[in-house]
């Protein structure tokens, strides 16, 4: 005979998602973790465009970036960020500049562009609701940007840390993968938003804009 008693523990009785998760986990032999990919669907920033042709160099270390991590008693987790980066930076720069050109080698950009942006991901971290005892999946992405001039000289580099979170309660019974994916998407959007508002304030960028576009700092 199997007997279960719930005393004052309404939560355990009512939290159907938790019950379902237990059943699903039991059915799957207790395996955990998740594997998600960020969909390449991003808006174009609505800002005053910088009247310059801009180069964009995306390294394979960025476009193939996958964060994999094994968490104690939570299995293996994987976030594929790289496959969305091309569209993300294409949309970002096409909203910020007059025109955007792919550049194979930032040290030799050719005469077409006023500068070349080289983004890279230097670190990714994430947390699960179980770790933080909350309802939220959270993702942090640390980017590192380099700006090359029209002659291929490195003008400056700066970091940017983006953050995204997603409430697992918004994603139904099987919330693990969609919530983690939503948190990763939110982090990418945050990176785009942060880059948009921060770009003109980076000292090296301000100097470059003054030289190339005669644009005073804002």
């Amino acid at each position: 005979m199997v007997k279960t008693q719930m005393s004052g523990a309404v939560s355990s009785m009512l939290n159907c998602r938790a019950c379902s998760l237990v059943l699903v986990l039991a059915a799957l032999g207790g395996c955990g973790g998740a594997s998600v990919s960020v969909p390449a669907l991003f808006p174009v920033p609505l800002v005053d465009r910088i009247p310059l042709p801009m180069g964009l160099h995306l390294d394979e270390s960025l476009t193939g970036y996958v964060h994999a991590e094994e968490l104690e008693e939570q299995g293996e987790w994987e976030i594929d960020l790289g496959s969305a980066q091309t569209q993300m930076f294409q949309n970002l720069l096409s909203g910020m500049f007059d025109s955007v050109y792919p550049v194979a080698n930032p040290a030799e950009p050719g005469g077409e562009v006023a500068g070349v942006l080289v983004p890279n991901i230097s670190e990714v971290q994430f947390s699960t609701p179980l770790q933080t005892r909350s309802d939220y999946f959270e993702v942090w992405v640390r980017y590192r940007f380099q700006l090359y001039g029209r002659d291929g000289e490195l003008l400056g580099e700066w970091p940017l840390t983006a953050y995204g979170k997603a409430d697992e309660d918004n994603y139904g019974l099987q919330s693990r993968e969609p919530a983690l994916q939503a948190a990763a998407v939110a982090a990418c959007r945050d990176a785009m938003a942060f880059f948009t508002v921060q770009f003109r304030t980076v000292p090296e960028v301000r100097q470059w804009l003054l030289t190339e576009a005669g644009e005073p700092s804002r």
Partner: protein
Amino acid sequence: MIRRHQPALATGCLLYLMLASGCVTSTVQQVRESATGMTETESVVVLSRKTRPSQEETEADFVRCISKSMGGGKQRVNVVAEQEFRDALFPWFEPRTAPVNASDLPELISQPELAERLASLGLRYLIWVDGDTDRTDSSGSLTCSVTATGAGCFGFLTWEMDSGYEAQVWDVRSGNLAGRVSSEAVGTSYMPAVIVPLPFIAPVRSSACSSLAQQLKSFVLNEG
């Protein structure tokens, strides 16, 4: 055999559905700061606060419920979907960049690109929704057993849910706070079990949604 029991079964189900909801008490309050009103071509958007790194976010389905309720029924209001709005105005309504106070709005909409996009959406009011629904109390006990001859539960559970939401209405045209509408709802749910548990669920969040949406609708149409 089954067909003979169908009317009784249907009546039983109907009776249960009629009775199977706990009691909900809801109150709505409104503070008007300025006159409102909308034309048929104007629209509103309902947005949730996604402040970081707060762990208290308004439920996504509550915001969708408000949008849907305002966009339906009698005297429907044109409602722009939240995601469509955030994408169209990207990056100005992201968690990092969204205006915190109505007083931030005039500077933001002074950007020609933004003003033009807002005009193309016909946006008249921004409605920021803040709050959530929590379980505040619970008691009782329930025991379930499974044997070779069958299974069953015995006991009684009760729990209370509390909803508290506030909506700020920003007038995009004037760049001012037009007013605030808040909704509180409290409800107690029960689950007696004699072999089979029968939940009597109080629809606290949906009550809060319908009362808040109704009041918001009359607020922006200047009926209340």
